[in-house]
């Protein structure tokens, strides 16, 4: 199933793929993500928890990863 917008139920396979990619990213703990209006920066563990919960931030993280995979498919240097 393709993710068309944040309202749609997330396919479990996609969710697992995203979780795997985040867990294996090895990003330094000091590097944190600010998404939109978030007051607190998100650690890798926070990202994992949001994706698991499929809340608004989790859906956005999944959308960001799927966007990346689409860009990879068409050629990242041509993006």
């Amino acid at each position, binding site marked *: 199933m393709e993710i068309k917008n944040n309202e749609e139920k997330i396919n479990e396979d996609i969710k697992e793929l995203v979780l795997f990619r985040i867990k294996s990213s*090895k*990003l330094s703990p000091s590097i944190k993500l*600010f998404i939109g209006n978030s007051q607190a920066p998100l650690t890798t563990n926070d990202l994992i928890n949001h994706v698991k919960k499929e809340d608004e931030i989790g859906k956005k993280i999944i959308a960001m990863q799927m*966007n990346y995979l689409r860009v990879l498919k068409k050629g*990242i240097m041509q993006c």
Partner: protein
Amino acid sequence: MAKFLITRPNHDTVTSYLFHWSKKILDFASKNSISFLDITGDNVNKKNVESYFKKQNPKLVFFNGHGDDNCIGGFKDEPLIESGKNEHLLKDRIVYSLSCNSAKVLGRESIKKGTETFIGYEDSFMFYTDSERETTPLKDKIASSFLQPSNELSISLLKNKTAEEASIKSKDAFKKETRKFLASNSIEGGEMIIMALLWNMENQIVLGNKQARF
């Protein structure tokens, strides 16, 4: 009379980063004798912004702050410009809104109400920071990869590039940063940073007159 107006609330970590990094835009303007009005901190409220629009009538406006589909926020997220309420204040102006999601509805509605050009983001603007650098944002090389491409847009507009050219310059800068992380093994997990860079690049849009110049 100020030629452009910039809002720089500074009430949390995100707005602190935007506050400090947008100073580079003002440095460029000062060096090139371009007059501006810099509204900062708790002065970034609806009353002041509306007043400055009427008195100074700036052709170009840079908003920095939080936002959503319908709104650009100021100090402590007080709505400055809201869809269906006061977007007419942007009439005939070129706007660059570094404020999450604000291009999605507000940007489009403002164009209907006469805004010449609205450049912004259709979804969240995301950026990574190095938490060890949060007290000195300008020394944060990770955040630089996100905020320098945004500054490229503003500075290109000040260099009299068209809105479309300015956006292309900004997107080229996002691509350059992406290549840096692709080519470098110095940062583990760089792929996560690339994802956010590409996300911002893809969500940046130019609405209205793409050929507008400052």
